[in-house]
């Protein structure tokens, strides 16, 4: 096996990724029918993109009082992005669904115009003709010159993939709210400045007028007023009224409730706060300064740039003046901040939704494995804190957590919308919606509520999909108010009828109306805050009933695929439960209740036909009661009872499965939503912006690792060395080559703690024992100099602690490996071609290993005697039995798990403050020399 000639065929130096599509053709019987749209980056589930733009983008438009809806800018700012997509048209669409007619003016009962601090509104809308779906975030900015002092704007995230918008609604909303908050903060500041200037103008005008009136009075002492004088007096009066009004406006804008900002974890920079206050102070004791004495007043010396102007009584017609640009409306600083934020949003959400979801799910899962996740995960991923919050959007929440969530959500400034204002705004929209009367059941269908029952809703969703009516070009796919008159429209086929469980979250609640008008709003703001408290308690039943009611009415079609899947899942659950009970009796011991509770949830995962985690993971509630870390979530948990189907799926090495493209196989998580996802986006998708670099590194490492396992027949013992904690030294003359090997192998190195990987890419001096404690993978220079000989002497001296991979002569000296885990991890016959895919494959196997190590570590009776009198030998026997039979480990695999278990123990018992002494564990085992 070691020197099998077929291995050599794969040994290539060039970047395999580039050759992806130039591979020699497979034999006919193995070939998978080519996907007609296969191109770089396309996935086989991708729908033909009907959109006219190539990738997602962000559009900012304004409803201008002069020209109507108009697009202002796009992000990325590239004409190619929007392509032939009609931005003007789309601006019209998105601006016309702004329900937030924020009223500024004289409200009845108020003497002065009143500013409304309106909340932003968020809607999702789709335009199936254009193939565009958008998250639209409306906001109003204040402009003194504008009608009613307000200028409506909106920011829209436009994508060809409806599911992305729906599923990422929460995340989009959060991110856009930040941007909006930033814009509005800048705007308030600018508006206040503007008001101040205006006040000065008015003041000046008043003084001028006053003087003129006085002069006139003096000039004519006839005892009666000329019409001219009366006019002047009127003018003066109106100016004075205007001053009062503007002062009131200024007071209002300054009294903006800043506490909202505090709640929203977002603190926009307030650079000139102090200065503003100073201005206020100076304004509050208005001086009747004569404009002629202006030069002498020092009151305005700190704003020397501004000279008050005389204001004409009749202002110019609004069409004559030029409206302020967005940049002028907001402070330049805040404007750029906003742009940064928007760019950030664009980067975050670009790419196919399946990547986003996979990433979010895996991050959420990883967070739960708090005990084991340090072993193989990127430190950067673990350190970030946002994921939890972001993830909440697509994650079902435990029922008990809902209240908490609601309260949190309502704290956030963005999502809340008052029912009253909403009602009124609906009327403004020229959409024919069959509104039911105030049916309070509708709000219950809010997403967070529903997501908990997603498993029930898989099929339901399919049906709703089926009822999409898109005869018109823009659809309101659902609002809180949209009627439940669910009618199948003839155009239903315009969207594929594919079950897409993820979409359930946001779509279950949505009902379509057949609207003769052209706009369909997919959904509006999440309405948790609208749910009456007493309904929250009862919603589960409401949800379960409603689908079936719809069934009769709207012709639910149960997809035949989903149901058996569910059944299977249940079978699995019961099977696994029974297995675990056995298991628990013998080894899990006292922790078994937790274990049992955890499993049904785990069992859900495989229930999907395509072997995919279709349901966004539920929080493992047992984990909260039990061990601090959740259970690693894969169904290989019951150890030795590892189902063989799992093996066949994950065993990329096994030849039996080679028929299905293994690339996809290990990539299976991407099945999740891709069934329905449109391939709108051909840009590479960084899973998370923060780890974009990490992602690249992973890809690179995966690629190198793939090459390594193909090129070196002794990859297995080398990887075994790394996994069992024996330092591997890569020895070579060529730095680049050594570094490449080190990078390749680094993905197999378990972390010793929550700091960086114990990998040293390049060392030129002799190694010492301390190095082996610190580093588990070392790239070492082979030099011909006397120093080089020292280096080799040190290597030979410490050879018992080391495995040595000689990159120059292609030899490996390390202990023998006869286990099976590494064979799965690194099969040189693997069909995986992409580095990132292989990386994922490795991660999945390593996660399995981690969970075994976790079980092994935390089973009390495996390490400590049950009773006082129990001899040590029987504990040892039990331990070995567990490893061999329960965890199904063979030979050297045991050592891997033992090593990981030691790391877990050390990590757990380590006091937070101390680094702890790194210790070196080793075995006295003979080494062998492997050659190519």
């Amino acid at each position, binding site marked *: 096996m070691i020197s099998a000639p077929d291995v050599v065929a794969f040994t290539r130096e060039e970047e395999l990724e580039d050759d992806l599509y130039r591979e020699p053709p497979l034999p006919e019987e193995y070939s998978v029918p080519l996907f007609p749209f296969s191109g770089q980056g396309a996935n086989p589930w991708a729908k033909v993109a009907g959109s006219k733009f190539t990738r997602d983008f962000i559009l900012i438009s304004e409803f201008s009082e002069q020209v109507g809806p108009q697009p202002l800018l796009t992000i990325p700012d590239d004409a190619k992005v929007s392509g032939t997509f009609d931005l003007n048209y789309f601006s019209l669409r998105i601006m016309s669904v702004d329900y937030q007619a924020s009223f500024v003016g004289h409200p009845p009962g108020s003497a002065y115009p009143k500013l409304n601090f309106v909340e932003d509104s968020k809607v999702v809308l789709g335009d199936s003709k254009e193939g565009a779906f958008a998250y639209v975030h409306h906001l109003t900015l204040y402009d003194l010159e504008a009608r009613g002092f307000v200028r409506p704007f909106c920011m829209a995230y436009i994508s060809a993939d409806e599911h992305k918008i729906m599923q990422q609604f929460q995340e989009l909303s959060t991110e856009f709210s930040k941007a909006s908050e930033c814009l509005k903060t800048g705007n308030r500041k600018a508006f206040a400045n503007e008001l101040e200037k205006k006040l000065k103008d008015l003041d000046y005008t008043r003084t001028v007028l006053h003087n003129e009136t006085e002069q006139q009075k003096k000039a004519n002492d006839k005892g009666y007023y000329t019409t001219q004088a009366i006019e002047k007096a009127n003018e003066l009066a109106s100016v004075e009224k205007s001053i009062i009004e503007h002062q009131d406006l200024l007071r209002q804008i300054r009294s903006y409730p800043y506490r909202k900002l505090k709640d929203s974890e977002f603190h926009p920079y307030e650079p000139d706060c102090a200065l503003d206050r100073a201005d206020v102070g100076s304004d509050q004791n208005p001086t009747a300064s004569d404009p002629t004495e202006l030069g002498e007043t020092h009151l305005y010396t700190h704003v020397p740039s501004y000279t008050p102007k005389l204001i004409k009584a009749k202002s110019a017609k609004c069409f004559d003046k030029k409206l302020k640009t967005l940049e002028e409306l907001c402070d330049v600083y805040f404007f750029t901040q906003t742009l940064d934020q928007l760019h950030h949003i664009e980067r975050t959400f670009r790419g196919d939704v399946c990547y986003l979801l996979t990433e979010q799910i895996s991050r959420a899962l990883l967070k739960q494995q708090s005990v084991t996740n340090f072993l193989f995960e990127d430190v950067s991923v673990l350190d970030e804190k946002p994921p939890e919050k972001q993830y909440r959007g697509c994650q079902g929440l435990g029922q008990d957590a809902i209240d908490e969530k609601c309260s949190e959500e309502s704290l956030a400034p963005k999502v809340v919308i008052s029912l009253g204002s909403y009602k009124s705004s609906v009327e403004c929209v020229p959409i024919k919606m069959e509104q039911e009367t105030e049916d309070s059941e509708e709000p219950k269908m809010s997403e967070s509520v529903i997501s908990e029952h997603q498993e029930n809703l898989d099929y339901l969703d399919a049906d709703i999909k089926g009822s999409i009516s898109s005869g018109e070009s823009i659809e309101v796919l659902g609002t809180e108010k949209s009627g439940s008159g669910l009618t199948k429209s003839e155009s239903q086929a315009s969207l594929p009828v594919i079950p897409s469980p993820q979409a359930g979250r946001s779509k279950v609640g949505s009902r379509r109306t057949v609207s003769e008008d052209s706009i369909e709003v997919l959904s509006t703001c999440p309405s948790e805050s609208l749910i009456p408290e007493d309904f929250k308690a009862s919603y589960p039943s409401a949800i379960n009933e409603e689908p079936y009611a719809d069934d009769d009415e709207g012709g639910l079609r149960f997809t035949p695929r989903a149901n058996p899947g569910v059944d299977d899942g249940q079978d699995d659950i019961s099977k696994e439960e029974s297995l675990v009970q056995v298991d628990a009796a013998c080894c899990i011991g006292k922790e078994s209740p937790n274990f049992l509770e955890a499993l049904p949830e785990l069992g859900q995962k495989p229930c999907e036909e395509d072997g995919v985690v279709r349901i966004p993971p539920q929080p493992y509630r047992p984990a909260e009661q039990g061990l*601090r870390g959740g259970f690693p979530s894969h169904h290989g948990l019951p150890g030795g009872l590892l189902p063989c189907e799992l093996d066949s799926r994950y065993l990329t090495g096994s030849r039996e499965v080679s028929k299905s493209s293994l690339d996809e196989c290990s990539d299976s998580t991407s099945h999740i939503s891709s069934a329905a996802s449109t391939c709108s986006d051909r840009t590479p998708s960084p899973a998370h912006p923060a780890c974009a670099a990490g992602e690249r590194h992973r890809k690179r490492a995966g690629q190198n690792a793939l090459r390594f396992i193909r090129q070196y027949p002794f990859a297995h013992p080398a990887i075994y060395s790394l996994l069992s904690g024996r330092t591997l030294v890569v020895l070579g003359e060529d730095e680049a080559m050594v570094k490449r090997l080190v990078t390749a192998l680094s993905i197999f190195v378990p972390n010793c703690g929550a700091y960086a990987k114990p990998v040293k890419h390049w060392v030129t001096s002799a190694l010492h*024992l301390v190095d082996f404690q610190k580093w588990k993978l070392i790239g070492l220079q082979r030099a011909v100099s006397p120093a080089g000989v020292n280096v080799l002497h040190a290597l030979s*001296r410490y050879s018992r602690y080391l495995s040595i991979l000689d990159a120059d002569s292609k030899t490996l000296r390390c202990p023998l490996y006869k286990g099976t885990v590494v064979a799965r991890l690194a099969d040189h016959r693997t069909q995986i071609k992409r580095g990132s895919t292989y990386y994922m494959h490795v991660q999945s196997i390593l996660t399995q290993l981690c969970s075994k190590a976790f079980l092994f570590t935390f089973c009390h009776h495996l390490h400590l005697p049950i009773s006082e009198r129990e001899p040590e030998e029987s504990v040892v026997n039990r331990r070995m039995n567990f490893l061999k039979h329960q965890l199904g480990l063979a030979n050297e695999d045991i050592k891997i798990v033992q090593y990981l278990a030691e790391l877990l123990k050390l990590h757990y018992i380590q006091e937070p403050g101390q680094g702890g002494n790194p210790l070196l564990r*080793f075995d*006295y085992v003979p080494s062998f*020399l492997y050659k190519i």
Partner: protein
Amino acid sequence: MLRWLIGGGREPQGSAEKSSVQTIGEEQIQNPYTELLVLKGHQDIVRFLVQIDDCRFASAGDDGIVFLWNAQTGEKLYELHGHTHKITAIAPFSSSDVTEEKTDFIITASADRTVIVWDCASGRQVQKVSCFHSTVKCLTVLQRLNVWLSGGSDLCVWNQNLDLLCKTSHLTDAGISALVELPKNCVAAAVGKELIIFRLSASNNGSEVWNILEVKRLVDHQDNISSLISVNDLTFVTGSYIGELIVWDALDWTKQASECNFWDSSVHPDVQTEIKLSQSPHESSVQHLTSDDECVFAAVGKGIYVYNLQMKRVIACQRTAHDSSVLHIEKLPNRQLISCSEDGSVRIWELREKQQLPAEPVPTGFFNMWGFGRANKQANQAAKKMQENTPVYFLDLVGDLIGHSSAVQMFLYFGELGLATCSADHLIILWKDGERESSLRSLTLFQKLAQNGDLQLKL
């Protein structure tokens, strides 16, 4: 292996040279030490390790700093600064007189001609004496009398409070190299080639007046005495630089037996030539002695010799136990012997009887690949020859510990807790039984789980 690494065939000399040293290879079933902790702190050669109690030890060396360590966790407890030069002697001292509470001290002597007493509980310097005319080279605590002795160019007697009780006149410039307590309030001091017996006497009224008297001078050694130990109440043993070993009666200070050049080739005529080649004064000096009730174990040059007091002869030896001088040896309770050497390695030996021949050496197929085969074979042959000539016992290599990159000066055996070694590479390594440590960690883990309330016992 080295040859393989270098890739050429030009480096075989090294291994040929070493061929006489027994090697064990990488598979060491009986070696319990599968985990190690490196304790860093010293900035120069670490020469002394001294045990304070069951789980603490102190280390000292040429940097003048004394460290206190926890032998279980490897935690650094205290760093004691006070000496400006290298430390020349260290001794633990526990007093429990006034209150029943036992307090541990350590006394250190340094080349800066001071002696400091440290409190191990607080890490504080208790007292410092700097009235010495020369460097104190050895310290001995006479626990029974509650006094301690310092040996330099003269011999001083101190009580616990560091009051000088009495002292001898100036003995020699070279100073006392070793001190050992003998019965009847006597001490033996090695001064150059001479062995001087002193008697310590408290004066009649029992008050503060002490006296120290020279009782006898023994001049049997041909060369400077390098080591001096007390075997039991009846015997003590000295060794010299040219390899004389003399067994003395501790009561009347007469020579009971002596073994001169017992490592000499006379015992092994067939390997004589080789021995002679490598024979040099340094090679035959008695570096260190240790003993149990029956035997004295001597580190002589590169070899280890077991001298039976009853039979008055060497019963087992390993003539080239290490690649270079053996610096320290110690006998373990389980018939094992540990030695450390200038070559940076520590070896574990087992004293076996001839009848219990080990099984045939491990199949050499693998070793051959690494070039170990030849070495092994020779070692085996040597062992066989030894069996023919040496009586009853032989030393079998059980395991070796390789970690230090320079001479291992000393080690301290902590029983279950493991083994601490100190070296010229400034490091102390704590060798531990991996299995035991692993289960200890499990214990800690579950204790912590219970503590944190993470372990909810659902019955």
